[in-house]
């Protein structure tokens, strides 16, 4: 159409970029056919476009970084969160509950002297040293005062070896044993039948409420243990549970009396 609007610079760009309406495209094409100079400009623009695409299109094929793929997904506080918020709230409550429970467990273990491991420690320690005929202890009963002084110093609190002669057990001696966080003291006793029992004493950092006697049997070794203040005590032996409980009561009674009058043993 020769009666079309005169060609503008914008027409040339729009024609080259295929952005003209079909009608205008026809008009411009006709005009370009008559104007080789303008046609040359359009060709130059098209050539540039092709060159730019050829240069930049290879970028599109590059692998995408993981961080961008992640950023394309719903952000943490996006749709998923809103949809799952009630469920997540329940789950969070549960997690908090479990976490508190777990922390509480830690606290309980601490307060109660880590009952499971304490009893097991007591049983294993007893089994190890009671079976040793030649050297069940480091310091023999003959040096009881030195033994008690030494262990008290190592455990950093006043100890005493209960006197169990009234129930047929005499002190063999004692030793320092490894504990969870702090060392423990082991006193070993033996009766006329060469049955041995041991008292394990361990002090923890955190004071606790008194607990009742607890009983455990580990690898054939019976253990009665309890916590008094921050101190854990365990009586272990391969003897009858009733008999061991009787021993435990005597020990408990003597220690209670000792604490009531914590003066060094005469």
């Amino acid at each position, binding site marked *: 159409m020769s009666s079309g609007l005169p060609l503008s610079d*914008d027409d040339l760009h729009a024609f080259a970029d295929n952005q003209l309406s079909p009608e205008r495209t026809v008009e411009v094409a006709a005009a370009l056919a008559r104007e080789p100079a303008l046609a040359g400009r359009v060709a130059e623009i098209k050539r540039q476009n092709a060159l730019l695409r050829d240069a930049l299109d290879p970028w599109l094929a*590059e692998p*995408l970084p993981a961080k961008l793929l992640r950023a394309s*997904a719903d952000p943490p506080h996006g749709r998923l969160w809103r949809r799952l918020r009630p469920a997540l709230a329940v789950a969070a409550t549960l997690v908090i509950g479990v976490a508190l429970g777990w922390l509480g467990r830690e606290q309980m273990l601490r307060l109660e002297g880590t009952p499971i491991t304490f009893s097991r420690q007591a049983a294993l320690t007893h089994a190890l040293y009671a079976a040793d005929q030649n050297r069940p202890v480091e310091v023999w009963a003959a040096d009881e005062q030195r033994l008690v002084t030494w262990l008290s110093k190592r455990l950093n609190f006043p100890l005493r070896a209960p006197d169990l002669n009234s129930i047929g057990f005499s002190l063999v001696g004692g030793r320092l044993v490894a504990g969870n966080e702090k060392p423990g003291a082991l006193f070993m006793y033996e009766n006329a039948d060469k049955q041995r029992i041991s008292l394990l004493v361990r002090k923890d950092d955190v004071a606790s409420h008194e607990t009742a006697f607890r009983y455990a049997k580990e690898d054939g070794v019976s253990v009665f243990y309890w916590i008094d203040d921050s101190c854990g005590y365990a009586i272990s032996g391969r003897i009858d549970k009733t008999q061991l409980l009787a021993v435990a009561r005597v020990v408990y009674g003597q220690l209670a009396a000792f604490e009531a009058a914590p003066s060094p043993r005469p």
Partner: protein
Amino acid sequence: MPDTLPNPDLIAALPRLRRYARVLTGDMHRADDLVQDTLARAWEKRRLWQAGSDLRAWLFTIMHNVHVNQFSLRQREYAQASLDADDGPAAGWEIPVRPTQSDRVELSEVVGQIGRLPLAQREVLILAAVEELRYEEIGDVLGVPIGTVMSRLSRAREKLRRMNADTASPLKVVK
């Protein structure tokens, strides 16, 4: 209003967002940071996206704004755009000119030439010639009237043509 963005479309747009970010920043690493910021902003503003409209153009708009806001340096480049004077490479243009698989040296040359265009012209040129956005869309992306789009496009093309005429081998000179 949509409460989400179509993730497949978003990922499909990533390569182009990345490419545009490189053209804007002139730096491969800064480009990816810009894409990341753009995506984060897009998710924040997801309710402003009209479902069914061109997600890519919307993302280009966000990227343009994030970039303008982030780099005040670019504002000065914008101010210089109309001067159309200096032909030196733009400050900070560090897109490596890698030897391409093909032996078309002009392909690697053109990347450097893009960097020598003022940012405002560079944006329009890439959106029109490479992304093939409609001029109206480019105006929306950049927040400028269509007349500004056309004048920037015209100047960008003329500059590029002159650069090529200067550096091209005699065989390519068309009289």
